């Protein structure tokens, strides 16, 4: 049930050997960074949050119990952290008008023109459809997005997603269905 990574974590919990934790970090850093990246499309933020997840696991290692797969435990922390983070970000006030002119004479580009669009961070090899998919993903609800990303990008089974998000299996199924329906509606032209 718990898997080899849980064994590794339990061993780290028992011995405190940092090399074991480094092994965990090496294995999960890419999925975790990409998980946050898909949610925020900001590489630096994604790395920061992934680092914070590992820090929390390191510090609170004593509270780990091998009841489920290690990845379930890891992504549950990640999901909680992301929710906290997005709430905090939502509270940040906008201090400057986006239509404020950049130049003092009031001509030329406005501040809004200088803000990089989210897709600028995507690799150049990315396709047009993928860019549109990224924009469409942002229009999903938080719940739908989480289920879609965990299922599609992290290749988690529905049962594992239900365990990670602490929701019933039927809810995972219906959220995934709604997410795909909504994405289809948003991407109708691109996919045809």
């Amino acid at each position, binding site marked *: 049930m718990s898997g080899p990574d849980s064994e590794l974590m339990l061993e780290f919990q028992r011995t405190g050997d*940092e090399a074991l*934790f*480094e092994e965990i*970090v*090496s294995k999960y*850093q*890419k999925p975790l*960074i*990409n998980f946050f*990246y*898909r949610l925020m499309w900001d*590489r*630096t933020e*994604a*790395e*920061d949050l*992934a*680092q*914070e997840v*590992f*820090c*929390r696991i*390191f*510090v609170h290692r004593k509270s780990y119990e091998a009841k489920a797969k290690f990845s379930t435990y890891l992504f549950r922390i990640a999901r909680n952290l992301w929710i906290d983070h997005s709430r*905090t970000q939502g509270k*940040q*006030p*906008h*201090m*400057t008008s986006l239509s404020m002119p*950049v130049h003092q004479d009031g001509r030329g580009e406005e*501040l809004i023109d*200088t*803000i990089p669009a989210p897709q600028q961070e*995507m*690799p150049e*090899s*990315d*396709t047009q*459809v*993928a860019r549109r*998919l*990224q924009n469409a993903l942002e229009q999903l609800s938080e719940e739908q997005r989480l289920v*879609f990303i965990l*299922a*599609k*990008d992290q290749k988690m*089974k*529905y049962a594992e997603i239900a365990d990670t998000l602490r929701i019933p299996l039927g809810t995972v*199924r*219906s959220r*995934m*269905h709604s997410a*795909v329906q909504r*994405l*289809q509606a948003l*991407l109708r032209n691109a*996919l045809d």
Partner: protein
Amino acid sequence: MDKHRQYQEDIVSYLMGELDDASRSALERHLASCPACRRRVQACRRLLESAAETPEIEPPADFTQRVMSAARAAQRRHTYHEQLRQAARVPQPVDTSLILRKTLSYRLARLVVFASVFIIALITISSMFDQPRQPNQPGRHQPADIRPGDDSAAAPYDAAEGTAVDTTAVAAIDAAAEPPTVVDAPPSVDDIASLHIEVPPLTLDLPPIELARPGSAIEELHVLRTNAPNPAYIARLDWRVKKRAVGYEAAFAIRRGLWWLANNQQPDGRWTASDSLRPGSSEIERGKTLSDEAATAAALLAMLGDGHTPRNGSFRAHVARGVQWLRSRQQPDGSIGNSENTTPELFIVGQALATAALAETYGVTGESRYLASAQRAADRLAQYEPKIAASGGSIARKQIAPAALRMAALATVRLARVDNHEETVSKTAKAFAKAASSSTALAYPLEGTSAPPITAGMLSMLAPGSAPDTAALAGELPRLRQHLPDWSRNGQVYWLCGTAIAHKAGGDFWQQWNQALVQTLVRHQQKSGADGGSWSPKDRDTRLGGRVLATALAILALETPYR
């Protein structure tokens, strides 16, 4: 119809391989006979395939090391907080009573004031209704029942009516009031009318709000609340402490200065020195202008120094953007900005300021995201070795400021508990001490001002959290005493160093210095216009950083009591 809809809802689960055998077989049978559902399967498959095409990003090469470093620091912080929590569970009568006393004495004093006003008002109103019953009453304020020869008036203050009552009430309110005058002979009406009773002003003997001392309960509460890894930062997070520490004028000047900085931040989060150079400073070579990284770091230090963090304070959005920009400028080797675009000395100045800004950001937030950046910046800074001449151990003139700032930045790193650069800090401090004792050539003249030269001893005192070196203080104080802050004679670098020393010296000298500093800066802060709230650079070194650096340094000097 319902069955058809059920099949449609199963399509996504079918494509994801999440249907059990029975449901899958049923759906496949339905698909063979339903073209609409077949089209739907194809559309869903295309969508899921295109989602799989979205490329993944690769983690940075040193990500594991960064995580491990951050995790160790988080562990240290967690252990420290755990200790505090443990300590908080044990009753600490001294500190708890301190908090209680402060709270209670304030509330009690407020209660006494309100009660006094209420009683006086009540008695005054009641006395208006208890007017004398004698028809020939001369005036409202004269006791009507006191008549010459009347025995009942022998002790005018015994009477429970008229002004006598007022006096008794006041005397009851304030025990310190003069006791009533004993009158042997019955006073005349005129005597009483002219009787003037001195009521001493009611003074509230409130204990001063002290800067939280290490180990005090207030400090521990702050640390637990803010998550700061070191209690040294708590003073700046408490506005009551700040206001008490610097006074209204300085607090207002700081606020206006910070507003100017906030309004002059670039959209991408940086502050730039070159754009803000004054017309009079055109002789400064472009290439030697302070880098944007250094200007940004200085502005950030001024904001952080006032307790604004990426999450808290009025300027949190500016701090967040500025710190983000600084971090985006960090190279793989830890350098902030490009070292090739400037002189080695100016690069170290920028690196030192940026390291201090990142370390303080971590220090005030305790967030691990800032730790790795601060750590790498500090490691890069520690690699720089100031050249110390063999004869007499003196440091080359142009390297004094970079070396001193490097030491101050590493001390900030230590204070923020980023990592222990103790050895590097003490090594540089020793080199300074050696050079200062053996050579007077170490003095760092401030061109363009008549201020005394900045010495290594002065610069070394910029290091936050450093204990006052009494010998060094004794050496510097007489010269500082002769050159108090004066707009026409000295400039920002001198004010900042001098304020650090004066604050460490304390006592009368600190009062004298701070008064001169606040007067000078408040008087010469731009009052209005685009530059309203800022200061112009006064010495040559500050001119390198233009109005941004001048304003940041002035604010930092004013913030000294609580930084």
